[in-house]
């Protein structure tokens, strides 16, 4: 069953002189449990594509369905709520809330969802353990390395039990050891908990791990390979 169904998706920026087609007519289905990499050179439209799928940027034309729901038919408040309950985000520069500890950053999403304190504490513990940071729960982001912060970001993305996780170049700021570590964790979560991951990347190590690789260039799908 398709978690994500993308139909004829366009994002066109009207520049003062030239019209830029960041996403130029993409049709795509993502199935549950996929570990998919969106690859392409800088400016190919990877981030714009993820933003459209994640309900962060409005398409010029086309539809994005998540579990059969037309994402862009939702009004602002409902769309935010939809993201909260269905989509996990991992950003290139981690983007943790600096004044909260690792534990609080993970709990934050569950708090927004209205989980009880007891359930929040348990799941936070489980997730931070799963990403190997059980001993750094009370550290604030500034006290964590880049790799550790990105692992907290992954735990945060999974906290809400999303239908899928969108990760925009998650390893771009990490060294090779941290990258390996993070990829192993995500692969494990994907395989054991059937969480759907979609990455944008041009990191060869990520591409190597992905089971489906979609190449985008000039806003179009150039190749769609399943390993």
């Amino acid at each position, binding site marked *: 069953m398709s978690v994500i169904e993308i139909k004829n998706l366009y994002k066109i920026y009207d520049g003062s002189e030239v019209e830029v087609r960041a996403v130029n007519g993409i049709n795509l289905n993502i199935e549950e449990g996929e570990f998919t990499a969106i690859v392409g050179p800088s400016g190919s439209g990877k981030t714009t594509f993820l933003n459209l799928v994640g309900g*962060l*940027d409005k398409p010029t034309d086309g539809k994005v369905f998540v579990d059969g729901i037309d994402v862009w038919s939702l009004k*602002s408040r409902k769309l*935010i*709520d939809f*993201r*909260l309950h269905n989509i996990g985000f991992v950003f290139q520069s981690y983007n943790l*809330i600096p*004044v909260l500890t690792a534990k609080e950053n993970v709990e934050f999403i569950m708090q*927004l969802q209205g989980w009880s304190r007891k359930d929040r504490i348990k799941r936070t513990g489980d997730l931070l353990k799963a990403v190997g940071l059980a001993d750094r729960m009370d550290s604030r982001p500034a006290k964590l390395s880049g790799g550790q912060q990105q692992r907290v970001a992954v735990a945060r993305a999974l906290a809400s039990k999303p239908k899928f996780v969108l990760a925009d170049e998650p390893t771009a700021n990490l060294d090779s050891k941290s990258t390996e570590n993070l990829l192993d964790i995500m692969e494990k979560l994907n395989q054991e908990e059937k969480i759907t991951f979609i990455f944008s990347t041009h990191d060869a190590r990520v591409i190597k791990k992905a089971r489906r690789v979609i190449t985008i260039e000039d806003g179009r799908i150039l190749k769609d390979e399943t390993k």
Partner: protein
Amino acid sequence: MKSNLRLAWRNLWRNKRRTLITVASIFFGVLLATLMSSMQEGSYSSMINNIVKFYSGYIQVQHEDYWDTKTINNTFVPTDSLIDEITSVTEVTLITPRLESFALASSEEITRGCMVIGIDPEKEKEVMDIGKWVSDGVYLEQNDRGVLVGFDLAKYLELSVGDTLVLIGQGYHGTTAAGVFPIRGILKFPSPELNKQSIYLELKTAQEFYSVDQQVTFMVLMLEDQYDLKKAMRKLSNQIASPYAVMTWEDMHPELLQMVEADRAGALIMKAILYIIIAFGVLGTIMMLVMERKREMGVMVAIGMQRSKLSWILFFETIYIGLIGVIAGFTGSIPLIAYFYHNPIPLTGDAARTMEEMGIEPLMYFSWLPSVFYNQVITVFIITALIALYPVITSYRLKVQLALKA
């Protein structure tokens, strides 16, 4: 809500120095505005006190025609029932009668117009405290046949304590008022006007001089608190009717009231400038804070935080800054104002001379009125709350995809 408050509080201390500088600007703003207000209200109080003490009292009960035609004929006898009605007003702490009219004062060859005021020496101690201003000689006693003469008038008439003063004037219903009075004392008031023209007699002596029986020109009413004026006036107006009239110092000295109002308006402009400076200082900080955190705000909305919730966090951050600054300013101003309230600043030079000429003691008084404090606190807090709308509006206008790139 609790977690929003906690998050806002923690955000506040991300950049301690910036927060403290902003808090300090509010602190000094509240402190200065309170000081300015206290000084302003203190000086008004002092002016009003002087006018009340030396001239009119807070309230006067007069014959209804006296204010328009100030003659000895428009007098009245303060009956027991009238006094009972006045004393039933709890705000009134003292009633004293006065008989006031004009006369010519003469020494051997010199004559000058003067104001003759018949007083109850005992009760006047609590109003004018005339004894305090006796520079030479002694104060009047009950049934005293002597007079107290203003310093400049005595000097003009070339008279001193023990000399005899001749008074000639018009008595009740056209009778001739004439009398010879020994000078008991010379009065040196802070007011040159009083020094030049005033002569004080014991009430009975004055009544005999003007050939009035037990009549007085007015009753002076004193209050515990000058801010009880309107309340007392309302009660008295309901109880006292024709042939009497009740007048407040505001009715009798409209020029002073106008001056106070005009000065208040001027001070309001000064305070407005101060408030604007505070407002821009805080706004600058908040704008910087919002700009710096645009990306973070974008992330929060992206991962599922409603804009309303985000806006509350940002709102509370500004409110916290405002609250800390305002509370610190309020707390800081209390000992400062308390000190100046108990130790008024003595004025010197031209400022002192000008005040003395106006009949006001050359001291800069400070007010301890609650409104002096809470007006500034409320105003500055409202300014901060209005500024807090800026991050709220920004969070609602935030374009998430652009904020994530910030």
